[in-house]
């Protein structure tokens, strides 16, 4: 009876709850208040300036082994500020131009085991500087300092041979700084289902290495007192590289061929003196390669393979100059999986085969490496996490990087990176830098 008495009350309460829920739910349909809904850019501006101001602090987690660095203890590795400016002009639909440059100030430097804040080092670097012209929507030309990024491999430059890499701080570079811009004339011509691209470069230069005596100097084991390195220009200043590609349902395929100066450094001449002078230059070579990909469901398979002729190779005896050259076959095969929501996971296997291999070469006949990456975007892409492990070919060491980026707002990003170096073989390129592990914090302001 009591239950019967309270039943109407219970029903009323239930209805009230349901009604409240409905009202609450209706709130989610309400007009979303926004700070600015009328700020839309309805057309690209004819002239625009964008940029990024960033402040970086790098902290060395261990004491580097001498003579690998001026720093001899764990502590602040660098404190720097960087300004990147980009100017874009688009007077009409068929003509545009871009110029970008970075300037940086290093506020702290190590000298004889002391961190010095008084000697500030400033650097100015031109990045993009090119003009674009579209001729009748068929031919597209780009002339000037530019990046032309081809190929599918991440861990090796196989068919991506136009722009040299920035190797001053391996594993630490931001995406936009991985490749170095080169002066080039680029043309793209569509014909039926094929695209033909040609790139003609002039004084493209080679890999950008760390300065003598700095961390990651490739010649750190050669004392400054015993040898002086001098850069000499290549015999031919030009390079010509072409690509023909086709995009089909589920995949892309490209063929690349070129006559070029190899980006890797080579000791081309020894001049006996006190100290000895070693001339460093680029060796002429050729490349013929294929790259492509195939998408199937949540999987993407990528490959890159090329024959590279006349590559300069380190000698086991470092005093043997000029270095020997050999032909190499380079390959990479990778699988990328995007079937887990907000995740992108990839693994790439890299390999190099050196032909006409002889024991005096410092490299093995067969070298293998890998590039593994996991990318996670969460909090509606406000927090981006990336984990990369790069095993350099030929037991030359391993670089591990964990990066987190938190987008506080469109303009303000907070970043942190942990970069670890690992090398066990004494001949490994990273062996002298195995204690160069660091943590980096940075704040970037975009405008």
């Amino acid at each position, binding site marked *: 009876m009591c239950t019967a008495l309270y039943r109407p009350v219970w029903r009323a309460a239930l209805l009230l709850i349901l009604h409240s*829920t409905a009202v*609450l*739910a209706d709130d*989610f*349909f309400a*007009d*979303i208040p*926004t700070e600015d*809904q009328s*700020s*839309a*850019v*309805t057309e*690209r501006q004819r002239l625009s300036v*964008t*940029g*990024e101001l960033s402040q970086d602090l790098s902290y060395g987690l261990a004491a580097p082994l001498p003579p690998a660095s001026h720093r001899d203890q764990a502590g602040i590795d660098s404190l720097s500020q960087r300004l990147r400016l980009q100017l874009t002009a688009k007077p009409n639909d068929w003509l*545009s131009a871009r110029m970008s440059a970075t300037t940086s100030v290093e506020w702290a430097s190590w000298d004889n085991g002391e961190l010095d804040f008084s000697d500030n080092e400033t650097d100015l670097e031109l990045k993009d500087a090119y003009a*674009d012209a*579209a001729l009748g*929507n*068929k031919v*597209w030309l780009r002339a000037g300092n530019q*990046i032309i*990024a*081809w190929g599918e491999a991440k861990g090796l430059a196989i068919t991506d041979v136009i722009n040299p890499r920035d190797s001053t701080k391996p594993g630490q570079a*931001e*995406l*936009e700084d991985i*490749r170095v811009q080169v002066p080039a004339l680029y043309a793209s011509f*569509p014909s039926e289902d094929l*695209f033909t691209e040609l790139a003609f470069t002039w004084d493209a230069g080679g890999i950008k290495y760390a300065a003598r005596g700095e961390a990651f100097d490739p010649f750190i084991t050669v004392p400054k007192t015993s040898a002086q390195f001098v850069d000499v220009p290549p015999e031919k200043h030009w390079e010509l590289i072409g690509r023909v590609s086709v*995009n089909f*349902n*589920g*995949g*892309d395929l490209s063929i690349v061929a070129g006559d070029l100066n190899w980006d890797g450094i080579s000791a081309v001449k020894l001049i006996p003196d006190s100290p000895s002078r070693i001339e460093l230059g680029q060796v002429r070579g050729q490349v013929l390669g294929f790259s492509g*990909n195939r*998408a*199937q*469901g*949540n*999987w*993407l398979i990528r490959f890159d393979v090329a024959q590279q002729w006349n590559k300069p190779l380190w000698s086991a005896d470092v005093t043997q100059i000029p270095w020997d050259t050999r032909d190499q076959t380079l390959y990479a095969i990778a699988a*990328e999986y*995007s*079937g887990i*929501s*907000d995740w992108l996971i990839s693994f790439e296997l890299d390999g190099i085969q050196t032909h006409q291999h002889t024991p005096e070469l410092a490299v093995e006949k067969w070298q293998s490496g890998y590039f593994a990456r996991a990318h996670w*975007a969460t909090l*509606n*892409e*406000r927090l981006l996490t990336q984990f990369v492990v790069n095993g350099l070919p030929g037991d030359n060491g391993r670089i591990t990087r964990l990066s987190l980026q938190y987008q*506080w*707002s*469109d303009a303000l*990003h907070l970043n942190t990176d942990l970069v670890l170096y690992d090398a066990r073989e004494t001949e490994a390129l990273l062996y002298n830098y195995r204690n160069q592990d660091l943590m980096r914090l940075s704040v*970037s302001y*975009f*405008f």
Partner: protein
Amino acid sequence: MSHLSVLAGIFGFFTLLTAPIAAKAESFTAYEIMQRVDARDTGKTAVSHNTLILIDKRDRQRVRTLKFFSKDYGEVEKRISFFLKPADVRDTAYLSHEWEDESREIDSWLYLPALQKVNRIAAADRSSAFMGSDFTYSDIDGPKIDDFEYTLINDSDPVDGVDCWVLESTPKTEAVVRKTGYTHSRFWVRKDNFMQVKSIINVKKGKRIKFFMARDIELVDGIWIARKLQMVTTRNNKRQHSSLFIVDDVTFNQEIEDSIFEVQFMQRGS
């Protein structure tokens, strides 16, 4: 079932039928209503400028502006979008070729200005967020109507003063749930133009519920569009995140060069 086929309009395939068809649309079954929602006059081409506002639960806003182009070639719908703002993603471009034949893979490429490189991407997972928003790629594309069962649960329920049908949809298979990320949904379809103007969508992952609303509905070049599309993601009856998509301007059926939808164009920018 194209819950948000209205949203699909931002890519040029606006979903709405015109008034003459609506005039005789009084005694349809749920499936017939959905057929008419899906059988849309999208225009052969579309060009639009858009603003996407992402708002977190602390009301912090991020604003993206984009320019979209789309062209219907019959067997394939080609779309390309360029980010104009903010500065850190400016010039990012996304190109897709979606084939009428469902057995063919959707071709998708992404151009990242930081790398200055075009990369093909696998595009099978349609349940992931579109540009960090509350809309998914499945929302954008509008899933196939035959993937769902429909029930007409209310023959008359007005939204913003316009009479609507209220329908419920349930995925026919677990594969559809995996593909779209959604379980069952309830949505309101306007009787005068077959436009979906309101939805409550149950998300499998995290047991979230999403609330969709279309506003500022108008006729442009003979095609109905919603100028504002909003999606609110909730969990335990609390707002987690919300997104507002504003169509700033749009034109239909203007001539667009085919070269815009080629991979090489992504590097040239809009």
